């Protein structure tokens, strides 16, 4: 059992890292706290920019890890360094030893109710991007009742000193446009608006998605952060923003408002992170060794990081990091 690599987290990063480590001849062990592998991405319906089914990608990942030792409903409760590597105690009472640890602990979605002025959890028709994704999968959400006017709010819990998150959450812009198009598909008669500050279309095909959103789907992008949401007599939502390109305050009544919640560091791992001596960076995510040449390495020997535990990332970014971390671990184990 001494050749084990302990992977904490069974989402996209954890699964992909495990797959590659196995191919490299090591013995990865995945420890996942929930009752299934897949992480956040398993809750997603379609992926930007080209509307691929998330399920297709995730099920391939499941296939890849089916022979890999996996603990579900299990957390690491204690971890200690020893002469051979690490000794981890699990919540199921077992313990495992490993040569190296890969932290693939992912992110938490920003709790939308913290942005009080948007009224999530108070006004019925304010929902989150995750809930909308669930609607796309199940077509069931009593709040989504043939809406005529739909708004998307970017940067909820991101680029915001007041909630303590100054960083850009990277994927929400593209997700918003993707979801806006999908809403137009489901409700062709609806008017769809997005309220953005900058549209950060950073990847291949993303800018094309933006163009398509405007041209083919007639989604209206308004440059201005939503300032305040309230409810009128009929339970519809009244929003205020500035149309900053027009230079005037703007008011509008909507039937549904979708909050594009940012990614935050998964805090359930804090104790283990402290035990391993991994610090947080200024955004509250895990600090890697180097921004360029040590992205998946940490400052602690034998401890590696991959995926959204270090910063908000897209799925392709995450998979890339998972593969990269496998190489890092492989080199580490062989050179030891």
């Amino acid at each position, binding site marked *: 059992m001494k050749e084990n690599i302990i992977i904490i987290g069974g989402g996209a990063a954890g699964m992909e890292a495990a797959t590659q480590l196995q191919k490299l001849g090591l013995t990865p062990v995945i420890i996942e706290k929930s009752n299934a592998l897949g992480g956040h991405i398993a809750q997603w319906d379609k992926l930007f920019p080209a509307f691929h089914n998330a399920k297709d990608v995730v099920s391939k990942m499941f296939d890849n890890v089916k022979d890999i030792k996996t603990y579900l409903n299990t957390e690491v409760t204690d971890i200690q360094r020893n002469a051979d590597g690490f000794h981890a105690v699990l919540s199921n009472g077992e313990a495992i030893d490993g040569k190296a640890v890969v932290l693939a602990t992912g992110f938490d979605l920003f709790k939308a109710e913290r942005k009080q002025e948007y009224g999530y959890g108070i006004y019925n028709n304010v929902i989150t991007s995750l809930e909308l994704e669930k609607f796309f999968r199940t077509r069931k959400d009593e709040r989504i009742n043939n809406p005529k006017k739909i708004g998307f709010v970017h940067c909820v819990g991101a680029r915001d000193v007041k909630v303590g998150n100054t960083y850009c959450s990277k994927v929400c812009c593209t997700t918003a446009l993707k979801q806006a198009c999908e809403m137009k598909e489901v409700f062709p008669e609806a008017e769809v608006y997005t309220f953005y500050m900058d549209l950060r279309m950073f990847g291949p095909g993303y800018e094309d998605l933006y163009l398509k959103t405007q041209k083919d789907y007639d989604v209206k992008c308004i440059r201005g952060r939503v300032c305040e949401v309230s409810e009128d007599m009929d339970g519809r939502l009244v929003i205020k923003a500035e149309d900053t390109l027009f230079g*005037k305050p703007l*008011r509008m*009544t909507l039937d549904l408002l979708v909050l594009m919640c940012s990614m935050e560091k998964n805090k359930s791992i804090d104790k283990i992170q402290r035990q391993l001596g991994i610090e947080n960076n200024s955004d509250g995510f895990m600090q890697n060794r180097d921004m360029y040449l040590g992205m998946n390495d940490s400052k602690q020997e034998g401890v590696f990081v991959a995926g959204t535990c270090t910063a908000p990332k897209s799925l392709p970014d995450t998979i890339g990091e998972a593969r990269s971390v496998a190489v890092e671990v492989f080199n580490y184990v062989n050179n030891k």
Partner: protein
Amino acid sequence: MDFGFCLSPSSHVKMDSVDLTTFNRLKETNPDVNTCIACGSCTATCTAGNFTEMSFRRILLMLQRGKEEEAKKMIQRCMLCGKCTLVCPRVSTFVRFC
């Protein structure tokens, strides 16, 4: 009674009551009007814009915010030189509307 002051009209763009007829007509003949990314190239290059407030991207915005009269007034400044069409990164053929 004269109080010496009176109620002021709100300057808010009231999106609920904006009349989009003209903009939608425009959109039918050229869907490009929807694709503006407010980069400002058209305004920067505009021959008339050197001397007046002419800004094509602003005209598109005015039409979408219910300020049709203002848009009509501004569009008269256009000198039909077509430079905006050359520089637009979204390949809008603006000059055709003017």
